[in-house]
């Protein structure tokens, strides 16, 4: 087994890739594709854990894997350090839990003879997301980004079997997502032109050399490249006001897809932003103006999206808008560019993934039983589906940032990041946002527990696999909320590493 260790970075990407291709060859009906996907994602989790162990052995160093042994300047290099090992683990874990969850939801929402294709695309999406995190080659990032995006478009479009609006939502996402990806490609082109390399660490080095020689002074190529990449990333991670594709896409996607995508896809976008803004441009370029703009967008995003969430009448849409708002927290966090702020961002990637994943799963269970996720379907479900609704409630408390849930930890870091630079107003905006989140969470909770049950409502609880999946995430949220020793240290370490490149 030890012979595999040096190949771990690439195995992380190849496992879901070949797993996905093989899933398409599985029998069309029956549970075989699902079981295969579960196996693949479980193996992926094992690999990710193994990877984290390797990284922890020497946390100061990075593990570089050269594909085909081409030198990093010419070929594709995968570079793993504490930050992306952590993000990969988050993605792998959530992929596994979502796959566990997917069984009943997919059986219900996808035609019986298409399950093999569904899981094939599902695994390829995971491959793309893990790949983005693993690679250090900018063009490879673009390719993997498109792999994950194209598969996610397809997955969302599969919501058409339940609601045809999934198609338009998916197409909107496709158009905006492709524009974003093309912007990123364009930005990478400018950097390639300037540095002659695609490898991120190498690119950074070249830029530093140019900076030392003074040729970077007033260089507009780097500025334009940075601008294109920032906008592209903003689109990909649904930073307000570039989030327009997100609410409908999350609302109309099949339940399992909402859970997977909401908890991982935008997070991967955020990870890319970390890499580009801190690792690549960090010391090269004074990005304080951009970061200020991002802080502005982030805060506005928190407030506006939370208000939109408070107005929505479809619970999935509430959650979708809330995702945009929560992403605002992450953006605000790293835009502070200080240790606590970036740590808040890093830790919120995990905390929000876990919380929102659990909530989308609970929501999906309601879709399964009631046929839709309208607020009206939730009437009195506290009695009919107690375990699911309890999961939803705890998840909601996590969104608000109540103590004992992971959301509180993020908020603590975020506020200390804001106060670190004496930005009291930022802290207040962030907290005001969480007050609005009380409103939208409580609208649903009141309906769940206080309204009279619809007579036609089913008596049944959600299926067992669904319950297990959502409760894994809910308990993770609580555990991360009472004991953030490990995650907090990891986030602080990752933040120091990122900022270290910047100061």
């Amino acid at each position, binding site marked *: 087994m030890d012979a595999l260790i040096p190949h771990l970075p690439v195995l992380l990407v190849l496992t879901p890739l070949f797993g996905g291709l093989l899933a398409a060859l599985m029998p069309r009906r029956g549970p075989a594709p699902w079981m295969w996907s579960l196996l693949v994602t479980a193996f992926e989790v094992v690999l990710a854990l193994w990877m984290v162990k390797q990284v922890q052995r020497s946390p100061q160093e990075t593990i570089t894997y050269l594909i085909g042994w081409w030198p990093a300047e010419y070929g594709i290099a995968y570079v793993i350090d504490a930050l992306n090992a952590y993000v990969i683990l988050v993605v792998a874990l959530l992929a596994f839990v979502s796959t566990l969850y997917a069984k009943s939801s997919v059986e219900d929402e996808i035609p019986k003879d298409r399950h093999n294709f569904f899981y094939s695309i599902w695994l390829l999406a995971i491959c793309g997301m893990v790949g983005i995190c693993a690679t250090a080659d900018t063009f490879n990032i673009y390719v993997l980004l498109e792999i994950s995006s194209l598969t996610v478009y397809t997955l969302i479009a599969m919501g058409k079997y339940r609601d045809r609006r999934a198609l338009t939502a998916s197409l909107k996402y496709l158009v905006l997502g492709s524009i974003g990806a093309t912007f990123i490609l364009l930005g990478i082109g400018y950097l390639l032109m300037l540095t002659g390399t695609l490898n991120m660490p190498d690119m950074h080095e070249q830029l530093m050399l140019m900076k030392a020689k003074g040729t970077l002074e007033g260089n507009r190529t780097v500025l334009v490249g940075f601008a294109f990449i920032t906008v592209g990333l903003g689109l990909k991670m649904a930073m307000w006001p570039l989030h327009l594709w997100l609410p409908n896409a999350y609302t109309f996607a099949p339940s399992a897809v909402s859970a997977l995508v909401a908890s991982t896809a935008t997070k991967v976008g955020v990870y890319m932003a970390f890499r580009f803004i801190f690792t690549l441009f960090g010391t090269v370029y004074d990005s304080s103006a951009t970061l200020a703009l991002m802080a502005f967008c982030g805060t506005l995003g928190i407030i506006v999206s939370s208000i939109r969430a408070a107005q929505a009448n479809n619970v999935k849409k509430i959650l979708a808008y809330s995702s945009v708002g929560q992403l605002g927290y992450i953006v605000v966090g790293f835009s502070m560019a200080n240790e606590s702020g970036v740590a808040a961002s890093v830790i919120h990637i995990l905390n929000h993934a876990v919380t929102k994943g659990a909530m989308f799963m609970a929501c999906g269970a309601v879709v399964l039983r009631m046929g839709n996720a309208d607020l009206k379907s939730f009437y009195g479900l506290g009695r009919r589906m107690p375990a699911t609704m309890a999961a939803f409630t705890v998840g909601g*408390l996590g969104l*608000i*940032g*109540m*103590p*004992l849930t992971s959301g*509180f*930890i993020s*908020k*603590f870091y975020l*506020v*200390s990041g804001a*106060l*670190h630079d004496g930005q*009291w107003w930022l*802290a*207040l905006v962030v*907290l*005001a946002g*969480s*007050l609005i989140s*009380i409103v939208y969470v*409580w609208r649903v909770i*009141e309906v769940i*527990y*206080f*309204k*009279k049950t619809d007579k036609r409502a089913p008596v049944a609880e959600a299926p067992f696999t669904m319950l297990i999946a959502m409760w894994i995430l809910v308990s993770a949220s609580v555990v991360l*909320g*009472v*004991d*953030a*020793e490990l995650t*907090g*240290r990891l986030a*602080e370490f990752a933040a120091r590493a990122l900022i270290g490149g910047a100061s």
Partner: protein
Amino acid sequence: MIEPSPVLAIAIPLVGGALVVAAGARRNLREAVTLLTSGILFATVLALIPAALAGPSPTTEVLHVLPEIPLAFHVEPLGMIYALIASGLWILNSVYSIGYMRANREAHQTRFYLCFALSIASVMGIAFSANMLTLFMCYEVLSLVTYPLVTHKAPKVAAIRAGRTYLGILVSASVLLMLPAMVGTWMYTGTLDFVHGGVFGEALERGSVPPWLFGFIFFLFMYGIAKAALMPFHRWLPAAMVAPTPVSALLHAVAVVKAGVFSVCKISTYLIGVDKLAEYGQGGWLLYAAGISVIAASLIALFQDNLKRRLAYSTVSQLSYITMGAAMLNPLGMMAAAMHIAAHAFGKITLFFAAGSIYTAAHKTKVSELDGIGRRMPFTMGAFTVGCLSMIGLPPTVGFVSKWMLLGAAWTAEQYFAIGVLVVSTLLNAAYFLPIVYRAFFRPPPSPGTTGEPRHGEAPWPIVVAVTGTALCAATLFFYPSVFAELALALMKGMPT
């Protein structure tokens, strides 16, 4: 033999809550569990008194919530007073609950007892918290677990609306004001531990925290603790009165509101440091804010016809006494505040018990309906009278002791405003409490033939036992205030002067 410890005191009600759920619909078993749990908890807390008198005990760390800030508990005099009241009154309140909930055929009783046990657990957490983060977490949990109790009568619209006001104000204030204050403290001082004299000393001397910022953080804390019901953050308290009376009695007269004033005292003493406030000339405004709150709430109470609402506004004003005690920024004032936490608890719970008793027996909620009720319900109204005397601060009740201490503290600190407030509010207290007593005993009851006038006697015996019990406590503590007085003294001794 398990050593009594703060962690145990938190674990007992949690286990009790789990057992309540396990007992479920077997109500005799369920209520026996509640009683037994409250008894064991009280014994555990009593066993901790010697540790408290010896000053803050070593802290027990439970979990690392954040890498450098653990969830930690310790025993110290102020928390001891609070824990003692809450756990002791929980026994009487459980007796009372059994009578009240059964007589009024309330629904969801298992949920009721579960949430009650959880509330007490978080109260213990607040009382024994060894750092600000622990206090904050338990404080928020208390808001959450009392929410189902406040909305107990849902789907009634009034209950849901009251729940919104309740949670809205409490959580908004704590998140918007208290959380930044806490994080600010952490950023500027690098610690959130509760230590005598506060944690700001060094930062203030070094000048890394300017005095205005120090004062600002204090301001955020004081208004962030909405549970202390400092005006204008008092609206949740009258709103919470839609809950069943045992909830109003123990939680909204004792546990939750005391969590507020306790936090005010604890933060002022152990995190901010009252001597630092006095030294840097900050926080003087609190005395006036509290004083105005006392008078205004008393004036509003004067015009309330609903008995529970009148009691609620009286609570608002009494709480501000305690805040005022803390705001005198001297050890004597803090000691008086600590004493008043105990004194008010016994008086006010008696009054609420009596109100619930009247509701159970006669289904009356308004002051104007109480004519001559004292003759039908002598025990209840007798206890009510004792409670009133304690509120006004007349002997032979414990209210007199604490009010006397407050006056003494104000006199020593030469706070003439405070003295004025105390005098005026005492008159106002008398003005809104004594007419009730007068009506009950000296007005003739409506003639038996009047339509809608139910025939009734005393309330069920558990209620009567509880209400008489708390009234007796309020009177006994006048003669033997030693336990609380010693604890209050121990608190004062520890404070730097």
